[in-house]
């Protein structure tokens, strides 16, 4: 079969994940269905059944077990993948921390979704943001092409930094939306993603007696391990950039590394956001620019590690409007983190699109205008 240089096709976000995973050639996949992730799992199951992907597809009884299976496989030297969403992600919470603490190079797709009660399958970012302390790298794509590219990049990042990587895509908004995209050829991905080393983070083989995880004789050994993970996550920032650049050379598309800057030249105001709705935010920015409002946009790709240096570059900006598609008792998560870099006086934190409520370009426009004109009384604005 002749391989085309590049295949242009139309895929949903979920199918883009499945195709990206197929190109990455994992050995073990285990996932439990949950809306809106299910079609990732179904498509991968189909690829395996048809022999298009040579991997073990393990049917599990819960998300906790899904990550546990993938963890065992990764620690035994296999390339492993899982996918989930909201409640399923929380069901594997304990395992998430254990995986990161074990330096397991796992890739996981998260189709973001609100948390109940009440039950709701629409889009929100609380789920993926809730794992940001676990040690996992956390990133979100903003269109289906990036979903595909980011998933492939995630395998390389995981296997270079020995940090598991969560790739977020907005539930339904991206997971179930068809966009035309380019599929990189298998040869390009093979070159980009060589086979995994079987001896890192450890070599688990019959006849080689080692133990991972027994109680340390000195708590300082454990503390050092935790600090090493922190250091690795800081080092990973460089890897995010270099991997994006390397991939960009291969397929002709790169995204800017940790963040994507848009119309920030000469900007006095900046919008900060993450995920698919950044497309709507960019439209708003364009329209405001046409009116002469000097506003730009910084799209967060990686929220962990956190792009401190990139966000700090906005320190010359007068007002930063951070949009959070999440809500906590401390306001918006991104808002608080950006404020920790730029100072709370600079930041207006707008919480919108909660529980999947649609928030369109003209609403972004209105909110940004209000914010930069100082018309909001509070630092945290609930829309």
């Amino acid at each position, binding site marked *: 079969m002749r391989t085309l240089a590049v295949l242009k096709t139309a895929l949903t976000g979920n199918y883009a994940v499945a195709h990206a995973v197929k190109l990455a050639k994992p050995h073990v996949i*285990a996932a439990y269905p949950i809306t809106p992730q299910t079609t990732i799992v179904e498509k991968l199951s189909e690829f395996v059944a048809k022999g298009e992907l040579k991997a073990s597809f393990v049917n599990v009884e*819960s998300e906790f077990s899904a990550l546990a*299976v993938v*963890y065992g496989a990764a620690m035994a030297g296999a390339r*492993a993948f899982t996918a989930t969403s909201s409640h399923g992600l929380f069901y594997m919470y304990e395992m998430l921390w254990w995986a990161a603490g074990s330096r397991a190079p796992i890739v996981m797709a998260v189709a973001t979704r609100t948390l109940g009660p009440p039950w709701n399958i629409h889009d929100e970012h609380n789920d993926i943001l809730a794992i940001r302390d676990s040690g996992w790298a956390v990133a979100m794509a903003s269109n289906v092409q990036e979903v595909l590219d980011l998933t492939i990049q995630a395998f390389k990042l995981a296997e270079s930094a020995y940090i598991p990587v969560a790739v977020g895509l907005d539930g339904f908004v991206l997971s179930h939306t068809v966009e035309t995209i380019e599929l990189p050829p298998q040869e390009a991905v093979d070159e980009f993603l060589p086979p995994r080393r079987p001896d890192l983070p450890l070599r688990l*083989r019959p006849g080689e007696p080692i*133990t991972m995880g027994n109680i340390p004789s000195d708590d300082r050994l454990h503390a050092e391990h935790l600090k090493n993970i922190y250091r690795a996550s800081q080092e990973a920032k460089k890897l995010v950039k270099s991997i994006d650049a390397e991939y960009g050379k291969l397929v002709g598309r790169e995204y800017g590394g940790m963040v994507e800057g848009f119309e920030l030249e000469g900007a006095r105001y900046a919008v900060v956001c993450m995920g698919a709705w950044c497309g709507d935010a960019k439209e708003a920015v364009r329209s405001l620019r046409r009116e002469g409002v000097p506003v730009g946009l910084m799209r967060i790709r990686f929220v962990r590690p956190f792009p401190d240096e990139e966000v700090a570059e906005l320190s010359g900006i007068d007002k930063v409007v951070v949009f959070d598609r999440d809500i906590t008792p401390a306001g918006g998560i991104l808002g608080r983190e950006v404020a920790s870099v730029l100072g709370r006086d600079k930041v207006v934190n707008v919480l919108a699109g909660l529980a999947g409520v649609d928030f369109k370009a003209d609403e972004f426009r209105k909110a940004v205008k209000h914010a930069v004109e100082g018309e909001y009384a509070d630092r945290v604005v609930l829309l």
Partner: protein
Amino acid sequence: MTVRIDLLPKTKYVVPGNSACAGCGMMIGLKVLGMALGEEAVLSIPASCASVVQGLGPKSGVALPILNVPFASAASVATGISEAFRQLGVKGQAVVWAGDGGTADIGFAAVSAAAERNSDVLYIMYDNEAYMNTGIQRSSETPKGAWTTTTPTGKREAKKDVALILLAHGVPYVATANIAYPQDFYRKIKRASEIRGFKFIHLLSPCPPGWLFDPSLTVEVARKAVETGVFILWEYDNGELKLNPPSSALVDKSKRKPLVEYLKLQGRYAHLSEDQIKQMEEEIDRKWRFLLRFAQAARPGA
């Protein structure tokens, strides 16, 4: 075909000076696992006594490749290891070495799923009949009437028969074993590891501090469990269930030692009334009748 004691490997898979209690029944079982499968096994060990007996890092008290894993995850992690080995062409047996808590309670869903999938895992539940690692709290494997810190007047509920439950999943091999019969356990491990699929062994492992007996009596307590009929040695292999010696000779009730010979050794039963002991004897009879009927029904051509 009992293996001769002097032909068993001398390699110390249990390393001297580990953190186990003096007289720990489980360590005898671990020794046997090492003898049978020491060079082929890769262990997943969930939170349990087994996690702690490995001693303090960077030393390990167990000379086997071990991944310590979260409490409820062992059956799933072992499945992942097994599948990875299959895809990578690594020869070996993924083994779970888990306590009754991690198997029958918090890890039960994962165990059931691994069995239902017939994942290639050898799952050994070492049963000390309570959450011993956290200080003797009851589990679903604690026998009726036994004292634990969370059942101070004696557990009211019956012991859950995990081995029979897993047999009902249709897996190729299920067996019970007992640390007083190491050669029987050795043979069962060897047999199980010949089979590709889910294998389960329920290993009775008495616990001196938890069952309240002198540590010198661990093996005797385990032996009395079989001799009084409390614990039945049986083996289910490819559709056929049979009793193993000496349990096979105890089908005749009169050959069993009186129950009190088992109970009187253990402080956890010290409070039992005559009535309660009588009830326990009746339940033992019932358990035997059920198992024997099952054995008959499970015979091919029955």
